[in-house]
């Protein structure tokens, strides 16, 4: 009786997720799918999403790795605050994130005049897309990397130091490989979240094909214009990518 109830509940949720996705995939013939993907705006959105997510990922890994390491290893005043702050974008609604970015870095924002003096104008640019993605997606990497670094056995790092390796070599050859599964998982999640970014992007970067219209925005705009075929084709691409990402995490976790 209980076994049956458990099985039913499990099947209900799995089916609830699988059913709409199957509907999206089988909405149209493969031929129509290929045609829709060849539309110039679809191509531009694919290229832009690939470019911006790789940039935001590079930014996150480059700046997030030291941050995660410090949060995992060092004790300093205000650490709990920084720790909480780093996670904040996960729970902040994306539209709020977009507004915050606009008020901080927009032309009329707090730093707007200073940036303008440096010849930098972020509003409505591809750079704004990257910043929006970094803002909402970086916590996924930092969280994972922080717990990865925290679980590394520090006696191994000490042993490496006694064998004459400097701190940088120890970090690169001992700490990173030991934390690798956590880091990889964080990278994948961070990239996936950046790929799906919508609210902060349209708020901060606007919506222009080739400049700020990423895949999720293109899906929305296609649907607005009544182009259901285009919208489903791009959606299937996003789903295929997400599926590959999830499978990637699973295989890393098993190792």
């Amino acid at each position: 009786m209980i076994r049956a109830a458990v099985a039913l509940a499990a099947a209900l949720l799995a089916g609830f997720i699988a059913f709409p996705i199957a509907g999206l995939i089988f909405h149209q013939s493969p031929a129509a799918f290929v045609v829709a993907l060849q539309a110039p705006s679809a191509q531009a959105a694919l290229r832009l999403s690939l470019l911006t997510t790789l940039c935001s990922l590079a930014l996150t890994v480059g700046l997030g790795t030291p941050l995660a390491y410090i949060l995992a290893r060092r004790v300093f005043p205000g650490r709990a605050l920084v720790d909480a702050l780093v996670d904040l974008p996960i729970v902040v609604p994306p539209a709020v994130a977009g507004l915050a970015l606009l008020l901080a870095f927009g032309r009329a924002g707090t730093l707007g005049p200073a940036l303008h003096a440096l010849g930098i104008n972020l509003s409505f640019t591809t750079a704004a897309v990257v910043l929006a993605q970094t803002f909402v997606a970086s916590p996924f990497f930092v969280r994972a990397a922080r717990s990865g670094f925290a679980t590394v056995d520090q006696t191994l790092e000490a042993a490496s130091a006694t064998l004459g390796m400097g701190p940088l070599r120890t970090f690169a050859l001992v700490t990173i490989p030991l934390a690798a599964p956590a880091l990889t998982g964080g990278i994948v999640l961070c990239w996936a979240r950046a790929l799906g970014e919508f609210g902060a992007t349209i708020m901060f970067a606007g919506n222009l094909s080739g400049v700020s219209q990423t895949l999720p925005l293109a899906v929305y705009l296609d649907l607005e214009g009544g182009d259901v075929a285009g919208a489903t084709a791009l959606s299937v691409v996003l789903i295929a990518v997400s599926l590959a990402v999830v499978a990637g995490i699973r295989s890393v976790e098993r190792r």
Partner: protein
Amino acid sequence: MRRISFVAALLCLSLLSPLPGKADPSSLTVFAAASLREAFEAAAADFTKKTGIAVKFSFAGSDTLEQQISQGAPADVFASANLTQMKKAADAGLLGSEPQLFARNRLVLIEPKTNPGGVNAVADLAKAGVKVVLAAPTVPVGGYARSAFKKLNGTAGYAADFSDAVERNVVSNELDVKAVASKISLGEGDAGVVYTTDVTPLVATSTRSIAFPPESQPDAEYPIATVKATTNAPGAQAFVTFVLHEGQPYLRARGFLAP
């Protein structure tokens, strides 16, 4: 634990009740173009006082609303900012009554009070480097703005390719007219095209308006109709009638013109 899941299940079930299939004569859901927000909210308060029927609104770009209704969203009334979206709904057999015009609107160019783009006339939109924010072409106001620019092509003071030059300056295609107004209010864009009715007292504190040449003004006509799938046909019809008659002063007060 069991009690918590029981309560949670009850809560979830209660969420289902306002969905279609359960007729409620004391409430109504109106899908209305984003530009109608202030006028309709004021009119609805009066409507509720007179009829006892509570009105819930979903404001968005008319194209979004039409899409949602065609996908079965629980709307009782549809008020569109152009005839195109209403005709789409009518052709798809989604309407319960003949669409009737209840208001007209005019376009206006707005820019931040600080005038960052040096825009002093509609013709300045073609100057290189001006950041123009429009609604997407599928949103009524985005379509109207583009047809107004085309009408100006080659007229006195405008180049033959004026509309193309403006299109090249577009930095964002926003999802509805209110988003255009907010991007200009926030000072992000140099100029944007909205309806005169979107220049609310609040928007006017941070923006300056520039009129379009009268000959370029499109007929921005607003039709309203009941939705066929409504579960409250008498209430929906009462709201449509109210908008066509007693509700007119509220529209006029917000700058809408008589149909």
